[in-house]
């Protein structure tokens, strides 16, 4: 059994708008909607829709003999939903044929496994949920952003339960070995590794329309003969490329679609290679050897490593600064913050900062909305600065311990004041009642006092009157006490008012308590505020006052119960 696997990467970054430093702290929207929409629309019309149609027709025509695999980043799916929902529909149609496999990856097309396993798993889970929701498909094979791979990343992927992973058949990793076999992860042999045949892949992806290429023009028959010429012992030919190759990187005018239409038929007819999806390859073939990749590789640039994203100090600083925020972002439950954090992780932002001017500068500038890597860096860092401000605001760590202590005291005082106010009002109301009743009070008093002197003798007859007298007496006391309370509470409010002034930005004063304070101050006059103590002494003296106030309240409360 010899297999031929076609896999296509689909990703569209969410490009940031021009974000100047004076937007920091003022503007929290980071995206260039117009650019994102127009690019997505353009690519959808030129590539995704026509290419999907060709793929669909090919699958129908060859009745299960033609199979392909896609990995679509979550960011791309988001944008399809927003700007070109019909693309999603056409992928659904493809999914329904059963000849298409969808691969798993990080939702944001990020480089997160370099930083955190937990966050990596979270993003992968989010992506596979999305794939399941849209295409009713559970991915079993993993593909990391831009085919990034290392032993460690592979073992994380194996831990998540995937059976195979795709990566680049990088020369410096393989040495004399051929990419046309199935390999396995050196840390966890359960994870099988499919390697990209970069020569055959790039013949289509990069060289197809290059007129100075000795093999130009490339036609399906010629390509088929190259496939046929592969040693019969080599069993897995993997052709991986950007899906945008069809119609976008190579325009329709170059004949790329005709090439695509003709190729499967020729392959099926003239070679013994069988079209397989990655999971079929992993199931059907026996891995031949472990693949040792101690340092991450990718399919980008001549170096086939991470230097396209993390090659210079700009990229490294931006990347590290981003993930320094991770711990602060984790506990936040704000969906907008979460989404922005996800979008900040899109690997393309770091790609734009690459300073590899000469070797792969052309490819870099083709994909770059910025004029220079410095532009890209400054723009990203400005956005990150704003994001950091928002995150810090939400984690709301007390800026100043004293301020927070004071604001706590103030809010307690406010509550107290409200309670005092209520009681004063109640007591006043009850006192007024008593006064109304007290029109015949003098008689009662007299009557009450005499029996009071001899309580034992007049026990039975004087019961009712004596009771009313004590109540009256006590109520009199209470009113006098309430007056002192009022006075004291007045002082407290005056103090708390000064405290409030010093901590104004941290505190929001309840309107009700504010009016209460105003009323009391009006009654008490301004003398207290004038000689109001400083912050420190206010803090110290307050708890005592509060206590005495509480005591009085409880006492008066008891009395009322009596």
């Amino acid at each position: 059994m010899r297999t031929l696997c076609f896999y296509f990467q689909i990703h569209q970054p969410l490009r940031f708008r021009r974000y100047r430093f004076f937007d920091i702290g003022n503007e929290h929207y980071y995206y260039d909607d117009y650019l994102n929409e127009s690019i997505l629309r353009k690519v959808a019309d030129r590539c995704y829709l026509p290419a999907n149609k060709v793929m669909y027709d090919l699958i129908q025509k060859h009745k299960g003999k033609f199979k392909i695999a896609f990995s679509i980043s979550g960011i791309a799916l988001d944008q399809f939903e927003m700007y070109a929902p019909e693309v999603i529909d056409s992928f659904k149609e493809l999914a329904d044929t059963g000849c298409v496999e969808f691969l798993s990856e990080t939702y944001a097309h990020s480089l997160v496994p370099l930083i955190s396993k937990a966050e990596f798993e979270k993003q992968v889970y989010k992506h596979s949920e999305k794939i399941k929701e849209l295409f009713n498909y559970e991915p079993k094979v993993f593909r990391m952003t831009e085919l990034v791979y290392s032993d460690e990343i592979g073992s994380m992927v194996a831990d998540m339960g995937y059976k195979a992973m795709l990566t680049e058949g990088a020369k410096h990793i393989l040495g004399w070995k051929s990419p046309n076999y199935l390999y396995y992860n050196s840390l966890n042999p359960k994870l099988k590794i499919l390697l990209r045949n970069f020569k055959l892949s790039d013949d289509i992806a990069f060289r197809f329309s290059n007129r100075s290429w000795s093999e130009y023009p490339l036609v399906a028959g010629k390509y088929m003969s190259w496939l046929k010429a592969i040693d019969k012992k080599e069993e897995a030919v993997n052709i991986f490329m950007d899906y945008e190759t069809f119609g976008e990187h190579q325009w329709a005018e170059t004949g790329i679609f005709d090439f695509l239409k003709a190729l499967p038929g020729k392959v099926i007819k003239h070679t013994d290679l069988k079209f397989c999806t990655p999971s079929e390859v992993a199931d059907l073939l026996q891995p031949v050897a472990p693949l040792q990749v101690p340092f991450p590789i990718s399919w980008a640039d001549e170096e086939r490593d991470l230097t396209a994203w993390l090659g210079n100090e700009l990229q490294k600083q931006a990347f590290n600064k981003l993930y320094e925020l991770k711990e602060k972002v984790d506990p936040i439950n704000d969906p907008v913050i979460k989404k922005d954090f996800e979008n900040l992780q899109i690997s393309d932002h770091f790609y734009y900062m690459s300073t590899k001017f000469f070797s792969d500068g052309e490819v870099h500038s083709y994909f770059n909305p910025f004029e220079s890597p410095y532009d890209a860096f400054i723009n990203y860092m400005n956005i990150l600065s704003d994001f950091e401000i928002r995150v810090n605001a939400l984690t709301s760590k007390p800026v100043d311990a004293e301020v927070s202590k004071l604001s706590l005291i103030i809010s307690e005082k406010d509550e107290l004041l409200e309670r005092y106010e209520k009681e004063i009002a109640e007591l006043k109301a009850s006192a007024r009642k008593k006064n109304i009743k007290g029109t015949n009070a003098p008689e009662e008093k007299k009557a009450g006092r005499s029996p009071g002197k001899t309580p034992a003798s007049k026990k039975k007859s004087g019961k009712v009157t004596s009771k009313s007298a004590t109540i009256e007496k006590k109520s009199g006391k209470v009113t006098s006490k309430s007056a002192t309370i009022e006075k004291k509470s007045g002082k407290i409010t005056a103090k708390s008012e000064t405290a409030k002034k010093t901590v104004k930005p941290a505190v929001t004063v309840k309107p009700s308590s504010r009016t209460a304070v105003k009323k009391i101050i009006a009654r008490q006059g301004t003398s207290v505020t004038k000689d109001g103590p400083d912050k420190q002494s206010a803090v110290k003296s307050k708890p005592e006052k509060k206590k005495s106030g509480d005591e009085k309240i409880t006492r008066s409360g008891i009395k009322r119960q009596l």
Partner: protein
Amino acid sequence: MFGWEFPPHISGGLGTACYGLTKGLTKIPDLKIRFVVPRAHGDEDVSKMEITGANDVEITERFVNYENFLKHIEYIEIDSLIIPYTDPEEYERIIRNSRNKEKSSVNTSFRGKLYFSGGYGGNLFREIANYAIIASVIAENKDFDVIHAHDWLTFPAGIAAKRVSGKPLVIHVHATDFDRSGGNVNPAVYDIEKKGMIAADRIIAVSNLTRNTIIEKYGIPPEKVITVYNAVEPIGESEKVSLKRSISDNIVTFLGRVTMQKGPEYFIEAANKVLQKKEDVRFVMAGSGELFARMLQRVASLRIANKFHFTGFLKGDDVYRMFSISDVYVMPSVSEPFGISPLEAMQSNVPVIISKQSGVSEVLQYAIKINFWDVDAMADAIYGLLSYPALSEMFKRLGKEEVDNMKWENSAYRVYEVYKDVI
């Protein structure tokens, strides 16, 4: 080789460039240079070449030729103070001189030597013509293979020398009047420039920007114009002076003549934007020029004078001292044929922001390039360089490397190839 100024007596980039190039040319074995300046002060660095001061050449026997010559170059005398570039002290002197200036046609001091001030003075056009006369004397008396004239001031001299000797003329354009005037070209200057370009066998432009100006604005056939980029002299140990920083604030520097060509107003507007957002930064405008008073007023009206400083014209070591305390160097030139000063800043480990309207932006990789009018982008770049250390670190390290690889020897070699081509 005809120049107008030579270190240490310089007022702009022209002298520096001539010196560097000439020094580079002396490294080429089978090449001998005779450098002619209007006035040799005697303290020039003559270790590498022969310097002839036009004020030391006797011309008594050349009067006939002189009459002829005037007809040819249509010598125009205008009593104007529109002067290519000048420093303020000299400017004042010019004004004083112009009041008691006599307007006789040839002024020979005794023993038949002409008087040259050797600067950009009020009787510039007279001096240019006199210089041309001397050039013809030298051309007849000395032996040489190629005539090389730097900028319009020496073009008449170059033309005269070519006419007398019949040797090929290479003219070197460091700036055109379009750059200096911002479009309001002085017709007399333009005329001299164009005559020089037409008479020349080859034209060397300091950048593609200038090359395009020569082709488009002066109507010169493209195949005659060759771009040779300037370079920068490596700093000697003695020049590596540094100033102790007395303030912790970041310093952003503009260094150049305060004239329309250099775009000082854009620097001020960008400074204002940065200061709205960032406290710990100061701006320095080093240089003087005709817009100085207006810039001062603008800074005052924006109420940023407490953070924006003017130093006046800086000379010699002061330039390096200024660089040593700078965190960012900005060159917002509206039109800059080349612009050596960013290279000097990079040598001193200062990250640079340069306008795309400068020749130097064609060769630099490790610099932020902006449009001179895009004040937002300029402010953003300043803020970015100050706020995100990775960027300035990268510029310091790789920018230094880049600029160290720009050697006058390489430029000189390309000039030498032009010579070989015309001989």
